């Protein structure tokens, strides 16, 4: 015999409603596929080359040292040497005096920084503007916080005759953007340099966004994890440095991307105390501390970079130089086989149009799955080459807007990029024979 109350409880799902609609995740599926089938993995965004020597040395020093207290808790909001050097660096970059204790908070990767922002500022009924294509976690994080994501697309403008497509050709329509702001808009998420396109927002574009933020009193969550990966001598402009923006912006950074150590999961937020205080509240009630040793090693890495800032030996100068070469190499490689690359201005991602290869993967009318998903999965299984479908970076409603693009990661050893090229060349020959 079960009481009515008990029956009612048992018929309700065990999980909380905040998980509704956020259980699917592209990485779970594609990481598994890549692990099973891929011979060359240009899918998930992580380097397959080693971390720089000075970071590995810092780690060795830390682990070999006498101080075993580095294996114990450190300051919850950020290991003192790390927040100190971050405050120095960002103070320099933004032209401001930053307090390491109140203007900086360390997180478990930029991912957790994003989570803290949404939990701290997005309530039920709040709207958050997300620019498409976007790093896929923004949407479920907004939903988990009870907010409503409002999407605005970057639209591909045809490049000038004869020129290859560039990430700069993907632009916001100012009127369309303005129409997305209303009194329910709590925040806009900006990602520059942008994953997956590699777009580096220009000063004009940032001013457009900034004006709307100020006009509508909206917060800006600025995901700048690829801040050092900017090519062709282009300048990265930080929206927080624009008029009226410091007070309403949280900047997010990542040691994983900065020092090629994605597996260390060290990220940070930089911003005004009156915003960071709320991030601290979320942080102290969710993970509380981040791993001490990882923070100590990253702090030492930054200390070295601060000393070498602007010099040719600086990793912030070396890494983009190296990656630009790899970018150009992959661009050539894709062009040669008939996949049309969109040349990225930044990040280590490149999106290419695979229309010419569609005959290998016939369209299935009325399929639930976007075409590029099917293409990417087929390519992993049949060609052993892993990439990510562009529609993974679009909201459900807009997944079929751009169905012929896939994203490659080029933060890879020469041997990997050559192997990818071999696969593509072989594939092209097979098509032409």
């Amino acid at each position, binding site marked *: 015999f079960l*009481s009515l109350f008990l029956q009612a409880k048992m018929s309700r799902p065990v999980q909380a409603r905040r998980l509704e609609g956020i259980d699917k995740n592209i990485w779970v599926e594609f990481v598994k596929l890549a692990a099973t089938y891929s011979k060359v993995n240009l899918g998930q965004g992580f380097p397959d080359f080693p971390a720089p020597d000075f970071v590995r040395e810092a780690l060795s020093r830390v682990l070999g040292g006498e101080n*075993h207290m580095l294996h114990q808790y450190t300051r919850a909001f950020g290991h003192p040497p790390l927040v100190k050097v971050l405050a120095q660096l960002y103070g320099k970059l933004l032209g401001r005096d930053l307090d390491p204790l109140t203007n900086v908070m360390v997180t478990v990767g930029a991912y957790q920084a994003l*989570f803290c922002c949404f939990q701290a500022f997005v309530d039920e009924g709040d709207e958050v503007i997300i620019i498409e294509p976007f790093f896929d976690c923004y949407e479920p994080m907004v939903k988990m916080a009870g907010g409503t994501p409002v999407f605005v697309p970057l639209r591909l403008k045809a490049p000038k005759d004869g020129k290859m497509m560039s990430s700069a050709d993907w632009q916001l329509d100012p009127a369309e953007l303005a129409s997305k702001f209303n009194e329910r808009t709590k925040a806009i998420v900006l990602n520059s340099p942008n994953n997956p396109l590699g777009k580096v927002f220009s000063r004009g574009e940032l001013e457009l966004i900034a004006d709307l933020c100020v006009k509508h009193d909206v917060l800006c969550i600025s995901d700048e994890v690829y801040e050092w990966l900017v090519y062709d001598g282009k300048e990265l402009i930080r929206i927080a440095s624009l008029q009226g923006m410091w007070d309403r912006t949280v900047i997010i950074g990542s040691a994983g991307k900065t020092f090629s150590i994605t597996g260390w999961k060290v990220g940070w937020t930089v911003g005004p105390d009156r915003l960071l205080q*709320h991030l601290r509240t979320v942080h102290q009630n969710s993970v509380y*501390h981040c791993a001490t040793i990882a923070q100590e090693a990253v702090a030492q890495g930054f200390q070295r970079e601060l000393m070498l800032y602007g010099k040719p030996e600086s990793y912030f100068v070396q890494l983009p130089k190296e990656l630009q070469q790899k970018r150009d190499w992959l661009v050539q490689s894709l062009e040669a086989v008939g996949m049309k690359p969109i040349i990225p201005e930044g990040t280590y991602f490149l999106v290419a149009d695979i229309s010419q290869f569609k005959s290998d993967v016939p369209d299935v009318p009325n399929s639930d799955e976007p075409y590029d998903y099917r293409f990417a999965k087929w390519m992993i299984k049949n060609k052993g080459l892993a990439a990510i479908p562009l529609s993974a970076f679009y909201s459900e409603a807009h997944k079929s807007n751009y169905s012929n693009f896939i994203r490659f990661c080029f933060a890879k050893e020469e041997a990997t990029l050559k192997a990818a090229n071999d696969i593509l060349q072989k594939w092209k020959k097979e098509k032409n024979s």
Partner: protein
Amino acid sequence: MFFASRNFCCHGIRTYQLRTYLLSRSIKHSASATMAFRHKNTRRIEGLDSNVWVEFTKVAADPSIVNLGQGLPDISPPSYVKEELAKAAAVDRLNQYTRGFGHPSLVKALSQVYERVCGRKIDPLTDILVTVGAYGSLFSTIQALIEGGDEVIIIEPFYDCYEPMVKMAGAKPVFIPLRCKNDGNSASSADWVLDPAELANKFNSKTKAIILNTPHNPIGKVFTREELQVIADLCIKHDTLCISDEVYEWLVYKGKKHIKIATLPGMWERTVTIGSAGKTYSVTGWKLGWSIGPENLIKHLQVVHQNTLYTCPTPLQEALAQAFWRDYKRMDDPDCYFYSLSRELESKRDRMAELLKEAGLKPVIPDGGYFMIVDVSTLNVDLFDVDEKQPYDYKFVKWMIKSKKLSAIPLSAFCGPETKKQFEKYIRFCFIKKDSTLDAAEVILKNWNKQ
């Protein structure tokens, strides 16, 4: 700023417009907070900003103070644990992302260790989630399974994060205190018990979960099989989940046995059991923990995890996996770290107890964990000049830090609002400290009355 133009003169038409605007926003603000009101915190974190640790770790950061407050070891982790980390960090691939729900070699090692302990098959991919410390497991579990309208039973005193985490999930904490059965004359953590009738009364149709912590922080109680059965019976009767925080599972002293509530009949399917590398291997700074349970519960924790931080650091997980394999292979051997650490801590426990008694204090001897609570009211220290508004134990600890250069944590930090009075005469000492730290504490305690 469009809002600033509406100043607060509150006359005529402006009053109406202003009131309507304010009503529609339902937010109070002051004239000076024009911009700030839109950027204030969300409702879910309202009132959750203060935290005992932020307050006391700052106070005790002075190196001249003997710190027996925050629960962190100042003993070294075993050397093989540190060596495994150095080995892992030297492998390029291990400096990049690993599997989100837990590094394969680690979840495999955990499944083996816990299969042996629980006597049941545990699937490493579906029954385990690796998190950022046990703290992260608590958060993932509560966010996954608890929401507005739910009640969660919390046993007092409790590890302080349970309450704010339950509130952040929109649910209502329902407290029940451990009560000393010997009329306040407690010599052992075993004297602190739940009243079964009082406990039963706390369960109702809204009770989504009960949080159990055994061995218990701060008292050190190790729940007996009978006590666990009382809780289990109620969970089954009311279809309630059990969140079992067992981070101190290996730190159980002579004569006591740690029993996992998940192994009681009818409990596996409704229990999430939480463990901690920090407490197991004395590496609190690694911040690795895990949740183990049935797939139908763990899968929801995994969804939270993939939407909060996605993956935990790789080299730390690999090193932990190797350490676990090493100790798994010697689980029949007394030299296994799980048992040797416990023996080491038992002698520290006994030493700490002696020192406290010598100073005229009455420690409650813990059966497990590395904390010891002490009734300080017997000292009759005059604290009238310390900040009035705080509970007695907060004032006592601050006074002790200042005048005795010894730190501890006030017990009322671990209580709900109703029970603060009951526990404010206790403070908590941590004894997972090296000999020189305990020596320094000894000096202070021996000289306590000579000032």
